[in-house]
């Protein structure tokens, strides 16, 4: 076995001493990695570090944290992100399973629906929900047509209005990794389960779902983290009186004198994102799901 391991660990170009020496002398790792790392440091690390500087300028943190509206918005945002990711996790897994077990024609239709959704502009999707929510829009037309309602529907710009739209927007991020995980299941495991007399529910619970866990969690964590910072959809659909954190930051973005507060709020949001991401990475190896 040693023979093969020895060969496999040698990077192209054949130097494995220190990465630095290897990069300079042989395989070019340094030449390839220095530009993107510099790029990311200048354009990711520096701007985010600059937020710290801004927040400390004008006692931004105490202003932000002392603000009742901001504290409420943090809670609102967490509830939204958590609810959306749980719903997306459940519906996404169901959809991925349906994709895998549907008869061919249905499966193709489901795939087309998924990719149509995935490739449709986020704004167009959000706009679609706006139309749907119009007081005399499609929901009203259908209900009215069925004789169920006469008064216009009032859902637009309520906090709850953002929920279905967010789930809708986020679904592909769970469906795709879970579907990929289903394709990688070993058919022999399923056959073995069946031969050993496991019923459908037992097979699902003990054989299928445990092996999909990392795919499901990778998707759900991504959805949670993305939902925390989502701006456009809640802004267009949600309630103006119950803003999300991102909307608050946006509102004080250009307001003179509020820069430091906005920076502090950004950092709080960022901190939540990083804590969730790092914790999830530790537990579920999320970056391995994405970074391969």
């Amino acid at each position, binding site marked *: 076995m040693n023979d093969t391991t020895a*060969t496999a660990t040698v*990077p*192209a*170009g*054949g130097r494995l001493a220190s990465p630095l020496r290897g990069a300079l002398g042989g*395989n070019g790792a*340094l030449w*390839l*990695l220095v*530009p993107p790392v510099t*790029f*990311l440091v200048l*354009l*990711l690390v*520096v*701007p*985010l570090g600059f*937020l710290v500087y801004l927040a400390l300028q004008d006692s931004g943190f105490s202003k932000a944290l002392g603000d009742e509206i901001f504290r409420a918005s943090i809670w609102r945002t967490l509830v939204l992100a958590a609810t959306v990711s749980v719903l997306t996790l459940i519906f996404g897994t169901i959809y991925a399973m349906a994709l*895998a*077990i*549907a008869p061919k024609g249905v499966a193709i239709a489901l795939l087309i*629906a998924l*990719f*149509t959704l995935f490739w449709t*502009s986020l704004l*167009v999707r*959000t*706009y*679609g929900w706006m*139309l*749907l929510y119009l007081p005399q829009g*499609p929901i009203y*037309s259908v209900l009215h047509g069925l004789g169920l309602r006469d008064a216009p529907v009032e859902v637009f710009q309520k906090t709850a209005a953002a929920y279905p739209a967010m789930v809708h927007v986020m679904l592909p991020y769970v469906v795709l990794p879970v579907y990929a995980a*289903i394709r990688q299941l070993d*058919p022999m495991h*399923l*056959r073995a*389960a*069946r031969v050993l007399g*496991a019923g*459908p*529910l037992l097979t699902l619970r003990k054989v299928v779902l445990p092996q999909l866990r990392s795919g499901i969690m990778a998707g759900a964590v991504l959805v949670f983290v993305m939902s925390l*910072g989502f*701006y*456009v959809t809640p*802004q*267009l659909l949600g309630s103006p009186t119950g803003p999300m954190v*991102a909307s608050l*930051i946006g509102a004080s*973005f250009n307001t003179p004198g509020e820069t430091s507060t906005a*920076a502090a709020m*950004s950092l709080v*949001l*960022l901190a939540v*994102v990083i804590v969730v*991401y790092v914790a999830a990475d530790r537990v579920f190896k999320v*970056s391995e799901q*994405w*970074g*391969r």
Partner: protein
Amino acid sequence: MMDRELRDGLGLARIPFLVLGVVLGLFMLVPLAIVVPTSWTAGQLLEFPPKGFSLQWYRAVFDDDTWTGPIMVSLRVSLFASLLSTVMGTATALGMRRLMQGRTSRVMRSLFIMPLAIPYVSYALGIYHLFLKLPSGLADTTLPLILAQATITFPLVYVVVAGALANVDPRLSSAASTMGARWPTILWRIELPLIKTAIIGGWVFAFATCFDEATLAIFLSPVDQTTLAQQLYREASESIAPTLSAVSTMITMLAILVLGIGSLIMGRGTAARRGGNA
């Protein structure tokens, strides 16, 4: 094979999945199914169901520089941003392949994936104020937006290209080096040709993401240069009109066309590569 075993293993339990799946599939298509018909109304107001059929609102889009200007801005910004992220993401994937697996490479990979997770508003705030501090009025150009969009699409390209590289036999590079090839030759003659389709795919993906990106554009684009996504946002938050539906329908069709063709090319590329290794 897999699908059949899953179907048999789940027995009747698959019926609820199937039913819910179809319901969810319809749910996915609902917003689009409303937007598209409202764009062809013959009336003056946005209505559902639409009144009659006409293409007047499509014509209106092209006659109106409210829309044509932003389309050009979006094309330009997305092109530069996606090219930048494609070069950077590809270089990263190629460089990471040359590093030994270890702690350093794990930390670096976390850095590379991070732009996927950061809240755009926070990021925009940092970029905006940083550029304000720079002299020479760079904050009033599209440069901050281009750089920010390049940063957030960087992980997309990296993930796609690294995935393709994982399917390239590392011994091909060793073989080339025993034949006298230095790393630039290996890069140019062996690695890049083999991951060509993935790079193009990553670029298309990055371009589409930049084109669709609104949050960074809202906060970073200069006053006189509005992107299409930003314009859509602006119009949608002010007044809902049939032109908006027409623009939405067009960009959706275009996106599906471009991304669909892109995926087909990518799919064929991977299939061909797999055939080569077998």
